[in-house]
C-alpha cells in the first residue's frame, strides 16, 4: 500500500515536534527513518498509527485521504505498529496473545480457527513459536515475531517498526530482515525507524532523515554515511581546550563491571574517573548509558566486577552507602524522581540538611532557603511548592540540594528541556563544582553539550562501551558515526552480539 504524509504538523506546548513533514512511500518499499532522539520520528509514526492526532496535514493511503482516530482505526486501515517494547501480555499464552486485539466475532473465542491461522502464518514466515508457551518465557525476538504474526493476521499492509533490533540476537535479526524483505516483495510497505546506520543501509530501499521536527533529506542507495551523519546531527561543533587529569587519584574505579537488563548486556567495563574531570556519556537513548550511570550510583547492581569509590569497595551496596562516600545522582525526571511535589523549597532544604535534630527549626529553614535561593539564583520563594517552579528552577533547586563537598556527581540529562540561558547557568554551577574537585559523569543526547563540556567521552551503542575518548580530539561526524554504530572496529570491540 502506498503511504503519503502531507504537511504534517504537531506541537507539544512550545515544541514543534513535527514541522511540515511531507513524505511519500510507494508500495513494496522498505523505508528507513533516521534521526537523533527528539527529532520527531516517534511522533510521526504515532500519528500514522493512530496513537496521536496531527495538528494539521493529511494522510493518504493508496491516494485516498483517510482520517486515523485510534490505533484500532489504523489497523482497520491496514496500518500496524510494532513497538520497541512489545505490547503483549506476558502472563498469557502465545495463542491468547495472538487472539487479543482481533475484531470480536461473537462471545466465544475461536481458538481452533486462530490456532490454524497461527500455524499457517508461522510456517509461511518460518517462525518456530510454540502457541502454548507463556509469553513471559519468550525472548524479546520471539515476542517480536509473535507481534508480527498478530499484525499480519489482522491484515496490515503497512508495518511500522520502532527500533526493532534492540535486544534481539544476531540470528533473530537476520530472520527479521528476511521477513521484512519478503513482506516488501509481497507489496506491503515497511517503515523501519532506527538510529543504527549500518542496519538502515543494509535493509532499506530508501531513507528519510528527520532533525528537530523537520524532514531534512532523503537518500537512495548507495548511501553516503558521512552525509547521513551530517544530516542527522547538522552543525559543526567547536571543542574547548581541556585539562589533563590522569595524574590525580581516581574518585571512581570500575573494574570489569558487567551489567545486564532485559534488553542488553554490557561486559567487563574498566574505567578510572579522576577528581575534577567531566565525562560525557553519549549514545541513543536506551543504548546502556542510563544503566551504566545508575550502576555508578549503586542504583543498579552489577552482575560481575567491582565498583570502588575512593578507597572503598562499594560493589553491591545500596545508593545510601554511595551517598555517604560522597556520590550523588540527579535523575532526569525532576518531579518524578528528584523532588517531592507537595513539599516547599525550604522543606526540601531541611530534608537534606545535615544538622537534623528532633524538632524542625523553621527560622533556620527560612534562612537556609533564602541563602540557597540567592546563591543558586532560583526564581521561587522559600514557601513555594517545588511543582510551581519552572524546569530550569527545579534543576537549580536540585543542584542546590547537593551536599558540599562531593567527590562524584552523576547527572542524567542535566539541561533537558531548559532554555539556553538556564543551560549555561547550570553548567557554570557544575564547572564550579569541578574546580572544587568533584568529578562529573553526565548523560546527554545533545552532541553539542557532550563535546562542549566533557573532558572525555564514552560512547554507548547496543550495550557496547567505547574506551574513553578525548573530547578535544573528537569531531561531530566521528561521534555521530559512533552513536550510530559506525567506526567501532578500531577499538577492537566486536560490534555484533
Amino acid at each position, binding site marked *: 500500500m502506498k503511504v503519503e504524509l502531507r504537511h504534517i504538523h504537531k506541537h507539544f506546548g512550545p515544541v514543534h515536534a513535527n514541522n511540515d513533514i511531507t513524505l511519500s512511500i510507494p508500495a513494496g518499499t522498505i523505508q528507513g527513518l533516521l534521526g537523533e532522539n527528539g527529532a520527531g520520528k516517534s511522533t510521526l509514526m504515532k500519528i500514522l498509527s493512530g496513537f496521536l492526532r496531527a495538528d494539521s496535514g493529511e494522510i493518504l493511503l493508496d491516494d485516498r485521504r483517510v482520517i486515523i482516530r485510534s490505533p484500532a482505526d489504523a489497523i482497520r486501515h491496514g496500518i500496524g505498529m510494532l513497538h520497541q517494547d512489545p505490547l503483549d501480555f506476558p502472563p498469557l499464552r502465545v495463542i491468547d496473545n495472538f487472539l487479543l486485539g482481533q475484531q470480536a466475532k461473537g462471545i466465544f473465542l475461536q481458538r481452533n480457527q486462530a490456532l490454524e491461522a497461527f500455524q499457517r502464518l508461522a510456517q509461511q514466515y518460518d517462525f518456530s513459536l510454540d502457541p502454548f508457551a507463556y509469553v513471559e518465557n519468550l525472548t524479546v525476538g520471539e515476542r517480536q515475531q509473535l507481534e508480527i504474526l498478530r499484525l499480519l493476521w489482522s491484515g496490515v499492509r503497512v508495518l511500522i517498526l520502532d527500533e526493532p533490533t534492540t535486544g534481539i540476537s544476531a540470528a533473530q535479526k537476520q530472520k527479521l530482515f528476511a521477513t521484512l524483505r519478503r513482506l516488501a516483495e509481497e507489496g506491503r510497505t515497511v517503515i523501519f525507524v532506527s538510529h543504527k546506520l549500518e542496519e538502515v543501509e543494509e535493509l532499506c530501499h530508501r531513507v528519510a532523515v528527520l532533525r528537530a521536527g523537520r524532514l531534512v533529506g532523503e537518500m537512495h542507495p548507495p548511501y553516503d554515511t558521512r552525509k547521513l551523519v551530517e544530516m542527522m546531527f547538522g552543525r559543526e561543533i567547536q571543542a574547548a581546550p581541556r585539562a589533563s587529569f590522569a595524574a590525580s587519584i581516581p574518585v571512581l574505579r570500575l573494574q570489569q563491571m558487567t551489567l545486564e537488563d532485559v534488553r542488553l548486556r554490557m561486559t567487563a567495563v574498566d574505567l578510572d574517573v579522576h577528581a575534577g574531570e567531566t565525562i560525557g556519556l553519549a549514545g541513543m537513548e536506551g543504548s546502556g548509558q542510563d544503566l551504566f550511570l545508575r550502576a555508578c550510583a549503586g542504583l543498579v547492581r552489577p552482575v560481575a566486577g567491582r565498583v570502588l569509590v575512593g578507597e572503598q569497595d562499594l560493589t553491591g551496596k545500596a*545508593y*545510601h552507602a554511595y*551517598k555517604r562516600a560522597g556520590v550523588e*545522582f540527579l*535523575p532526569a525526571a525532576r518531579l*518524578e*524522581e*528528584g*523532588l*517531592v*511535589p*507537595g*513539599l516547599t523549597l525550604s*522543606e*526540601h532544604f*531541611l*530534608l*537534606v540538611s545535615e544538622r*537534623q*535534630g*528532633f*524538632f*524542625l527549626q523553621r527560622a533556620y529553614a527560612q534562612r537556609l532557603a533564602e541563602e540557597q535561593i540567592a546563591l543558586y539564583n532560583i526564581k521561587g520563594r522559600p514557601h513555594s511548592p517545588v511543582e510551581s517552579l519552572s524546569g530550569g528552577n527545579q534543576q537549580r533547586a536540585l543542584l542546590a*540540594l547537593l551536599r558540599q563537598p562531593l567527590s562524584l556527581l552523576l547527572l542524567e540529562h542535566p539541561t533537558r528541556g531548559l532554555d539556553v540561558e538556564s543551560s549555561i547557568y547550570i553548567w557554570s554551577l557544575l564547572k564550579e563544582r569541578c574546580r572544587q574537585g568533584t568529578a562529573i559523569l553526565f548523560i546527554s543526547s545533545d552532541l553539542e553539550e557532550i563535546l562542549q563540556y566533557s573532558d572525555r567521552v564514552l560512547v554507548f551503542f547496543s550495550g557496547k562501551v567505547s574506551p574513553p575518548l578525548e573530547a578535544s580530539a573528537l569531531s561531530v561526524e566521528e561521534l555521530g558515526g559512533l552513536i550510530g554504530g559506525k567506526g567501532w572496529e578500531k577499538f577492537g570491540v566486536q560490534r555484533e552480539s
Partner: protein
Amino acid sequence: MKREQIGLSLGLRLLAILLALLFTVMVLLLSGAPPLEAFRQIVLGAFGSYKRFTDVLVSWVPLLLVSSGLLITFTAGLWNIGIEGQITLGAIATTWALRLLQDSTFPPALSLLLATLAGMLGGAIWALLAGALKTFGGVNEIFGGLGLNFVATALTLWLIFGPWKRPGIGSMSGTEPFPQALWLPVLPGLRLSLWALVPGLLAWGMVFLLLSNTYFGLRLKAVGKNLRAAYLLGVPTWQHMMLAFLLCGALGGLAGSFQVTAVYHRLIPAISSGYGYLGLLVAMLVNFQTLWVAPVAFFFAALNLGSIQLPIVLKLDSSLSGVIQGVLVLFVLLLDGVRRRMERG
C-alpha cells in the same frame, strides 16, 4: 493556595455535607420515618444529658487514638487497613497481661500500667507484621492488613471459647470480668475515665506535633508524597514506613487496651467495635490535617451514640449513623475529585 481556591474548597466541603444530609433525608423518607424527628433524636441521644455527653466522650477516646495513628501511616502513603486487627491485638495483649497480674502482689496501678504498655506493644507488633509483609514480602499493606484482621478476630474467638473461657462454658459475652480493682477509675456515676481521655488527647497532640514540627514528620511526608525522590534525597525510606506502622499500631493497641480496662473490663468478641474502619473514615475526611481529627472524631462519636436512641423511639435501626458517616465521606471525596478536575482546567 490562592484565596479563590480556599473559597472553592470550603464551599465544596459545605456542599458535601449538604448533599450527605439530603441523601440521609431521602433514606429516612424511603423507610417511612420523619427525618426531622430522627435528627432531633440523634442530637438528643448524644447531648440530651450530661451523662450522654460523657458517653460520647467514652467512644471519642478510641476514635481519637485510632484516627491520630492512622494520620501517621497516611502521611507515609500507607493504607493501614489492618488497624482493626491492631486494636484487637492491643485488647488481647492487655487481657493477657491482666490475667497474669491479677493474682500477683503488684499494686493495681502498676498492673494497669503494665497491661496498657502490653496493649500498645501488641498493637505495634501486629502493625509491624503488616509492615514487614509489605517491605520484605512485597505484599500490599491493604491485603496484608485485611488478612491479619481476620486472623485477629479468629484469635479472639479462640481465646474466648478456648483457653480463656469462663468457668464452665465459653460464651459470646466474653471472658470472665476482671476484679474492680483492675478497672481504670471512672468519674462518679459515669462511664468516662479521665485515665483514658487524657492519654487520648495527649496522643492527638503528640501526633500533631510530630507531623507538623519534627524532622521525622517531614521525612514521613517526603516518603508518602514521592517514595523514589525521598530515597534519592537520602531518606531511609523503608525504615520510616516501618516506624509509621509501629507508631500507628501502638496507638491502635492503646485504643484496644482502653476498651478492656476502661469500657468492657474483659475481652469480648467484637472488642474493636469497628473503631478501626471508622477511624479510616475520619482520617480520609480530615485529609492530613491533624487538628481536624478531634472535632471530626467527636462528631462521628456523637452520631454513633445519638443513633442508639433511634430503634427505641422511632423503630429505626441504629445503623443509620453508619449511613450518614459513610455517605458524608463519599461526598467529600467525590467533591474533592470535582475540585481537582476544575483546577486542572
